[in-house]
């Protein structure tokens, strides 16, 4: 009995917190996107003095970049410089 009440409360909490989890994840993703932009602004033509160093991160970001362009509805990489797929 106690278990099913606990389950019910957990279910109820999951329902009402769905939006909230999504909002937090969105904020985090926006921050990440901004961070990526700061690292690689050179690709968009904005001069970036530390580009030389941030480029070293390039191998680590390919996977994230791939997720990003899929998220934006593009099946293939939009930039010829980044050949993730």
């Amino acid at each position, binding site marked *: 009995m106690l278990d099913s009440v606990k389950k019910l409360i957990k279910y109820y909490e999951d329902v009402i917190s769905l*939006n909230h989890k999504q909002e937090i*994840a969105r904020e985090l993703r926006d921050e990440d996107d901004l961070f990526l932009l700061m690292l690689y602004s050179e690709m968009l033509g904005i001069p970036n003095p530390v580009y030389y160093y941030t480029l070293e991160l390039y191998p680590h970001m390919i996977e994230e970049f791939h997720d990003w362009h899929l998220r934006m509805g593009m099946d293939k990489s939009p930039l010829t410089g980044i050949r993730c797929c």
Partner: protein
Amino acid sequence: MSAILVAILGLVIFALGYRFYSKFIAEKIFRLDPNYVTPAHKYKDGVDFVPTNKFVLWGHHFTSVAGAAPILGPAIAVYWGWLPAVLWVVLGTVFAAGVHDFGTLVISVRNKGQSIGTLANKLIGQRGKILFLFIILILVLMVNAVFAWVIANLFITYPASVLPVFIQIPLAIWIGYAVYKRNIKMLVPSLIALAVMYATAIFSAQNEFLQIDLVRYMGGEEAAGLFGLGAVATAFFIWIAILLAYVYVASTLPVWKLLQPRDFINSHQLVVGLAILYLGLFLTNPQITAPATNPGADTSWLPLLFITIACGAISGFHGLVSSGTTSKQLNKETDARFVGYFGAVGEGVLALVSILAVVTLFANADEFLGAYGSFADANAIGLGNFVEGAGALAQGLLIPQGVATTIVSIIVVSFAATTLDTAVRLMRYIISELGTEYNIPALTKTHVATTVAVGSTAALVLIPEGPQGFGSGGYLLWPLFGTSNQLLAGISLLLISLWLKRLGRNYIYTFIPMIFLLFMTMYALFQQVTFTWSWWGTNSNMLLFVFGAINFVFALWISITAFSAMRGKFDNRIDND
């Protein structure tokens, strides 16, 4: 006739519809595949695309679509008697809304989780998109104007509800900070907020000094108010001005600060409201006193019944939710049946009890017919009657009448206020999009777009000659609300039919509701545009004539597109991944 009997009959038909009809649709028509990789898995990003348990997703979907509209429509439509309203809600939910909500979810899942708006754009092209945006703009403008009046009306009729409703704002902000900034679990804070609100409701229902009654402050209904208006009109003016100022601020804040925490509280309120209504119904066993049909009606039920009850029978707005957010979170394709179809059933259950609350309120049929003297009267008093009727049902749970009506009015106002916030936000996005489309960069700025949204709402709501007195200008456009909503549903059903046709399946189950909806919408629009609103009509009104004519042309265009599409012209425009 016993209201319990009608409720049980309705619930049994809903259950049978879910058990057999939706199963048939899922297996034979949509042919859902449990192994299909849904967008939630394919594009999983932890934000928009997140595989979610079907029960949790259903709860979320249901609370997103249920609001004040499935209460308002039925409370007006009982004007034609309880039978037509009950039949349309029950059969509409089983054969139209269920298939529509379910279908929009599935077609979106099979099209990378894209929304119905994007899919419609593919079908009807760029010019169609602009007209589509325009129709939605009219839709939200009407929602704003009408709900601002509805809330002001409830504040004036039930002054005890003012304080609890306003207390919800700081409570919501507190929850927002607690949950988002300090990472506290939200169940407890939101339940505390609800308890504080209802405790305030009980105190203010019993103590007159806590009731913010503007009309009483000005010296009663007969007294003179400001700007040469009467006391009641002044009260409407003040409340509407406060509401519009509130909605301006609320809709420009980030969603987590106010809108979402309010939604958490409102989901509890939905559960509380449904529980009070159904428990009250089964404990008090009230008799339906309203007549089954109303032969003396001054406005024919055909086609207006199908326009008046949109949410609760079938509503295009649900398709926007199904295809907008829910489709991106569907774990397995086979879950769509439960989430989509059963979500529509949930809304039908709410609409059914709204009808029963109103038709059991009056002592006898004559009293009912006296109150619902004309269709205009029904529009004016519908929601108030729902609050009274629901209050009477709540008395079955030993809640005092004053407290019960206060709590019910708080629930309705909370739903309406959240809808207002969302609608102004939506209007802002559409104005920005039109600004981008027509190269007017100023319109894309948040505060400019919001000012245009709130300003046009204010202009509409404060037109002095509104049908229900000062401040009810929004009601002028209300007849168009249902038609725009149903038109949207018609477009969604057309897209689903096209998709089914392309796959060589039997599309009759979505095509018939589509024809029915488009026919009723065009019939209602033609009738009203030609015989009521035109310059030779009985109630000439240029504003309505222009908006109505635009809607009619759009409906005609959609019908022609549907006809050509069914002859195989646009088969390749809807994908099936």
